[in-house]
């Protein structure tokens, strides 16, 4: 029996590779908080990924070291609510001048988090004029 020709195998794999390269994007931050998003039905897709900055709020992944109280994560590290204005300023700085007004802040918040910290963050965002926000949710079926 002749051996199966494997000469086209690299081409197949390259095709797979290109597919993944096109459909995915690079993971930018490593999460230090656990995010279990709530489910909603009336969701909109977040367009223009480059104009979105993310704020993560949730219980730390390393509960032995940091406890279970919800923490804020900006970029790659834990932060406090007072750090939000500076974070937004840096995010604006990094964008094109024409795009700055269209910057959206996506709040990725764990579903069991209390609203207190979320409200604080929202107040800070209002103060610095980052009015466009997006409550990140999973798209789910009918609730309840």
């Amino acid at each position, binding site marked *: 029996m002749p051996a199966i020709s494997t000469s086209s*195998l690299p081409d197949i794999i390259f095709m797979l590779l290109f597919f993944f390269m096109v459909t995915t994007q690079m993971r930018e931050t490593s999460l230090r908080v656990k995010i279990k998003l709530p489910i909603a039905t009336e969701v909109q897709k977040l367009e223009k990924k480059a104009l979105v900055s993310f704020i993560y709020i949730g219980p730390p992944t390393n509960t032995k070291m940091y406890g279970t109280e919800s923490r804020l994560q900006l970029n790659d590290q834990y932060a406090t609510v007072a750090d939000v204005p500076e974070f937004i300023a840096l995010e604006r700085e990094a964008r094109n001048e024409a795009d700055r007004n269209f910057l959206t802040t996506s709040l990725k918040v764990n579903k069991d988090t209390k609203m207190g910290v979320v409200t604080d963050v929202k107040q800070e*965002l209002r103060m610095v004029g980052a009015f466009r926000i997006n*409550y990140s949710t999973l798209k789910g079926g009918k609730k309840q």
Partner: protein
Amino acid sequence: MRRAAPEINAGSMADIAFLLLIFFLVTTTMDVDSGITRRLPPPVENPDIDIKVKERNVMNILVNKNNRLLVNGEAGDISTLKEVAKKFMTPHYPDNPSYPEVEEKTIALIGTIYSSKGVISLKNDRGTSYDMYIMVQNELARAFNEIKDELSVSKFGVKVDQLTEEKRDAINEAVPVRVSEAEPENIGGN
């Protein structure tokens, strides 16, 4: 005699490609970010001056720390919230004092229609869970989307998601999403 150049061994090409593939699989994400988009109100310059909105134009929703709802002073439920909000925000003409005021609007592509001046005021406690908050926001969004769909069907014959961009903008102008997230305050203690 010239020797033919030896052929490059391509046997390991597949392995190299596999390695690249696995690298991309690990370092990338495929999840589509979706969520409920809202616009925060600009900061109030002088918090002492209350902007007076007629009482009949406001629907008050309070969520306390036990995730219980108070809708217009009465205990409410998440399963009926959409219907209540939709009823409240649907424009009623002729003027009915138990519903918000209506105003006449002339919008391109739609013409003259009546638009409700109602506002939904949403207040939550610091102890409210985020899940509950999103559920309330979702129900309100659902109410607005249904009103938009109804208007769209009556004017254009199709639902909002099948409209062209200009028509969709017209619908959005006719049915403004007015959900006000009031200044935070502690209700029901922490």
